[in-house]
């Protein structure tokens, strides 16, 4: 019974994915969606991957990391080296980017995850900056002027496919035994330890996985914008991702997706008012935190049942139109 219901929701999800993909792809092919919105759709996809992967670390495992942009940078540069310098195909570059970022996440996570709370936050912030400054000082990848001449391999199909893969992979991870262990660490680390959960192992596992997916997002990023530049991966980018995670709700994958879509749309819609854009954005952040500190969805997932209760659709959809 339970299994059948699960298969049914999975099937609905699959059909929905195919429908969304087919609609958007045909709109792009028919030139209904111009280059500006195409760019934003790609950005939304990259942001979804980043937000969902950071949510695995921050939301589900409860480890407060704010250096995600560093792992994204590693993925971006690693994949660019693979395609430009070594002439390897894009898929290998993505895997390489994920592997590089994941390995670095593992190497960094092992010692730093002994810290907790604010100390971990500051350490990861510092690590993100160290990664960026080190890249800045490597002439092989262009140093301060950035890595130029990266071919544009990323298109909507790649982004969509990898977003779906990321969401399914992380969702399945969370629903597995390992994911439960991660959630138990979030709820109470000492109690989890006492119940026999190997907290170090699971913290490092979640951190490594999150970093690897950030690497995937980085690969997509550099292969869309022709360039990987150290200035794109500052701690402001990390804050951007963190904002999406918190806004959507810590521990809610659908929340992260909604917030990534919403925030990318808001910044795109405000693009014509460059002076006011960041002011409105920052005020929105403050007001949202004041009135909904637990994020849009809390730690709940958006489901068909929840949609049925909110007749008339989601309220925030109206802001996306303009």
């Amino acid at each position: 019974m339970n299994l059948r219901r699960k298969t049914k929701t999975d099937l609905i999800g699959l059909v929905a994915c195919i429908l969304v993909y087919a609609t958007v792809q045909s709109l792009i092919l028919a030139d209904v969606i111009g280059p500006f919105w195409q760019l934003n759709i790609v950005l939304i996809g990259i942001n979804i991957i980043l937000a969902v992967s950071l949510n695995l670390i921050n939301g589900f495992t409860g480890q407060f990391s704010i250096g995600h942009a560093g792992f994204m940078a590693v993925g971006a540069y690693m994949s660019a080296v693979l395609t430009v310098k070594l002439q390897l195909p894009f898929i290998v570059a993505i895997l390489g980017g994920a592997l590089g970022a994941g390995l670095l996440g593992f190497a960094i996570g092992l010692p730093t995850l002994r810290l907790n709370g604010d100390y971990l936050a500051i350490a990861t912030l510092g690590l993100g900056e160290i990664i960026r400054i080190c890249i800045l000082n490597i002439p092989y990848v262009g140093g301060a002027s950035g890595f130029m001449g990266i071919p544009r391999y990323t298109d909507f199909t790649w982004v969509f496919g990898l977003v779906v893969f990321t969401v399914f992979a992380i969702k399945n991870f969370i629903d597995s035994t390992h994911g439960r262990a991660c959630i138990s660490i979030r709820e109470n680390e000492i109690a989890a330890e006492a119940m026999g959960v190997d907290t170090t192992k699971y913290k490092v596992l979640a951190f490594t996985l999150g970093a690897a997916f950030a690497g995937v997002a980085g690969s997509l990023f550099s292969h869309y914008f022709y360039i990987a530049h150290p200035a794109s991966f500052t701690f402001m980018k990390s804050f951007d991702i963190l904002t999406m995670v918190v806004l959507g709700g810590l521990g809610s994958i659908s929340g992260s997706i909604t917030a990534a879509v919403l925030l990318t749309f808001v910044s795109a819609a405000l693009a014509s008012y460059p002076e006011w854009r960041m002011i409105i954005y920052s005020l929105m952040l403050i007001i949202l935190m004041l009135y909904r500190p637990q994020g849009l969805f809390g730690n709940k997932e958006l489901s068909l049942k929840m949609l049925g209760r909110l007749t008339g659709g989601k309220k925030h959809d109206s802001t996306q139109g303009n």
Partner: protein
Amino acid sequence: MDSSSLIVQFGQQLINGISLGSIYALIALGYTMVYGIIRLINFAHGDIYMVGAYAGYFATSVFKFSFVPALLFSMATAAILGMTIEKVAYRPLRSAPKIAILIAAIGVSLFLEYSGMLLVSPQPRTFPAVFNAEIYNVGGLIINSQQVVILVVSLLLMVILTYVVQQTKMGKAMRAVSFDTDAARLMGIDVDRVISFTFGVGSALAAAAGVLVGIYYNSIDPLMGIMPGLKAFVAAVLGGIGSIPGAMLGGTMLGVIEALVSGFWSSTFRDAVAFGILIIILLWRPTGLLGKNIREKV
């Protein structure tokens, strides 16, 4: 480079480092006090330092104030700003999850930076020269009058702060709230007022640092607060967050290390070294050099 010039070079970097470090220490004091009381990493603190620098700039260039009134004006402006931010953005979130208040702080920080850009234009401005820059040559080491002023002003402010925290009634209340907020409230301390006061004092110190930096580097811009803000936080953690002598020690150490790194190695690695030290300190002594070790209880 022979050994005598190496020593001179070392001494010179030490002097530059100490004056830079005392600025970090002033900013770090605000971080450490706020963190000690409400456990919040106030990301907007670096931007209050920026606002302080601009207040000092307008006080000297528009109102034609001399140095001390301009410094006091800037400190007062920042204190009011800090208390307002606390009241509007942080106080309503005091019982919310910690991450929400952190995001609010990031929001306030962005708001200050970009309103600054809108109001005073993103271009850097030249800070008016409030002193005649004199250069003293002490045994081959070059010290300029700005460095002397920075040191004197920051030392004076630190002494005043230590007096306030150690000797006054408000200082006692601050220490009590930081030790145990609930117990302090039960003992009749107006916790909100104490927190507001802490924000005011911390912001005033940051503003003083902003004015001093304006005098030292002659240039201010709306995004100037980001890096020093982070560095000052590193300094606070380095010394042991929540500890006032720790913030002073951490700030000075960080300044000296940075000056030595940029003098002897490469200035591009300066920030990386600062964060590297932070991580090493955190792993080796998570509560900082002067911090107390608190065992976690269930």
